């Protein structure tokens, strides 16, 4: 095992299932034999605020926070929040982002506009960017709420971890009644190019 620590930053809006996705990532890496650390800010963010979670794994991890500019993967659940946190990503880093806009309060009331062309701007700064239609794929898998698992599937293809660990983690963390849909959503995400 090399000493390299892999850094993943998850960002989105409170209520999108970001924390569960971060839990599944962490569990997967532990099952695969790595040291893992995960850090997040919640509390106020439950009420529609911005949510950021950091997951790091490797032989030995010190800080639970991804050092600025050292993120390997930005795992985004919403376009504007993904753009906002690009500074955490290293140059040439990978972005896997849900093709979804959620308007913040100032936009809802018509005071500000949701910035145009967020997806394009992300792709300009990070050419290695996969735009995922998470919502529609989740509906195809059987439940619109499984978009986070579709995205997780897409992220999993970009990491060198055996599939069995992912499945084991999902089976452990996802409630039984939602498991079949989530496993399907995960496979659909993994199938994305």
């Amino acid at each position, binding site marked *: 095992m090399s000493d390299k620590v892999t850094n993943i930053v998850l960002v989105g809006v409170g209520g999108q299932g970001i924390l569960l996705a971060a839990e599944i990532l962490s569990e997967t890496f532990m099952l695969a034999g790595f040291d*893992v650390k995960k850090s997040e800010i919640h509390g106020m963010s439950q009420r529609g605020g911005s949510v950021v979670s950091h997951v790091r794994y490797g032989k030995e991890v010190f800080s639970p926070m991804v050092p600025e500019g050292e993120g390997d993967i930005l795992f985004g659940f919403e376009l504007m929040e993904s753009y906002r946190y690009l500074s955490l*990503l290293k140059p040439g880093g990978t972005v896997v982002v849900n093709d979804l806009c959620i308007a*913040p309060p100032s936009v809802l009331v018509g005071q500000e506009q949701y910035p145009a062309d967020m997806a394009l701007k992300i792709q300009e700064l990070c050419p290695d960017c996969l735009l995922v239609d998470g919502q529609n794929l989740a509906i195809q898998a059987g439940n619109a709420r499984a978009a986070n698992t579709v995205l997780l599937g897409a992220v999993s293809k970009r990491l060198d971890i055996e599939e069995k660990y992912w499945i084991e983690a999902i089976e452990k963390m996802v409630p039984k009644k939602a498991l079949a849909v989530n496993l399907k959503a995960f496979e659909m995400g993994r199938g994305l190019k």
Partner: protein
Amino acid sequence: MKEILSGNEAIARGAYEAGVKVACAYPGTPSTEILENTIRYREIDSSWATNEKVALEVGIGASFVGARSLVTMKHVGVNVAADPLFTLSYTGVNGGLVLVCADDPELHSSQNEQDSRNYAKFAKVPMLEPADSQECLEFTKLAYEISEKYDTPVLLRTTTRISHSKSVVNMGERTGAVRDAKIEKNAAKFVMLPGNARVRHVAVEERTVQLSKDGCGMPINRVEMRDGKIGVITAGIAYQHVREALPEASVLKLGMVHPLPFDLIGDFAAKVEKLYVVEELDPFIEEQVKAIGIPVIGKEIISICGELTPGRVRKAFGLPENAQSAVEKLPGRPPNMCPGCPHRGVFYTLNQLKAYVSGDIGCYTLGFMPPLSAMDTCVCMGASIGMATGAVKVLPPEERKKVVAVIGDSTFLHTGINGLMDMVYNKGAATVIILDNRITAMTGRQENPGSGHTLMNDPANAVDFELLCKAIGVKNVRTINPLDLDECRTVISEEMERPETSVIITDKPCVLIKREGIFKAGAPLQVVDESCTGCRACLKIGCPAIEWVPASGKKGKAHIDPLLCNGCDVCSQLCKFSAIQEAK
């Protein structure tokens, strides 16, 4: 057994393994999940107290009759619990007592950034500070040993990045050292009259000296010698950032941050060319190291404000910063009250009535944000009523009428009730609105004495707020439906006119309550496009379910997201054109 645990989960596990029998707390981010995890262990009696002072008193009672107890709170909660804490330092313990205080550098969800290490020094009690979840578990167990060996309560300090970070933990078993409770009277130790307390103070000072000496041999205070050029004294999460940013530096990692092991610090200082202290918030370690005559660099290079990150440590040491993408400025994304939140109608009304709103701490603090913009003060838990009393004491009569205190159910029971008794007794003529949503919502929906359930999910007495207010002498108590804007306006304006104390209680629950039968969503609403004139009146309540859809060349229209709408119907009451109706 290996698991990934958060710091909070690991502390709960540590308490279980240490044989803790009683755990008590008032919820507060980032400490809340500790008690939400001790309930996994039925051997521990876990409960929410009405406030932090009561929580600590419950812990003290259990300790004095011999059982190990755990008390948890956030940093500002320690201010509330400080009174019993300082004397508990004198009495010492019988069964071990650990008080967890969770600090929040960077104020992720707090009203100030205080450094609780000062409390350890001020109250003269030892403080341990873990640096990851494994240490959270181990230090909790060690804290009980120290507590009983040195006859002292022990503070366990965490910060947000310890409480809410997860890392791999090896778990153990509940030990055989579970202490049974039994009455053993010892007035000289447990009755702190001046004569007894003078004797105990001497013991406290001796204890601190002894702990400082013994700390030099404690494995949790450890020297990691690497390169001799740079030596760093650090603790807690700062240790992780130092290891990340300065992998070659020698480190003295302190597990006990009070009292400091001065001899060990002196030895370490002698082994390195240049000595630094890397710590979040106050120069707590730095000042004490300087005071014993050892030159050290600390706050000259590291900010006294905010939390550390690996990048901030790199910058402090002049290391090159990583390249970062520059992104343009974006609209912010602050938290907001939920769709259907029962507070929204009240704040809309207060804004319309141009009230001076003395605010408090909870979800409803978000009422200060536009477009509701209806909160003028927020200082600490329970403060709104007392502050309203103070304001009406000095305002001219016409201005006095504008003063309205708002307070949540849990906050009212925390310390607000004292303010209300004072207001009635001292004839304060202000209006108090108790925003009773049946739950401690902001910290994640914890039960409280007004909700009718305990932390361990047993049915319990639910405080009758109306009767309670009457019992403490409020003559004018009215209950309103906060989702009915006409009723809000009529009742609130009538009570604001009244030249004596009055209390208005709202009676709709939080939309996030999961318990069956408490919150019932109404039918989702929709905007009938042909009727919408684009007047924007419905946008004035700032509901996340209502979106303004601009249209080029002509007026835009409002749109309601049927998936978000909880059918509270407040928006339709604002629409003069009957454009908001039940979705078909």
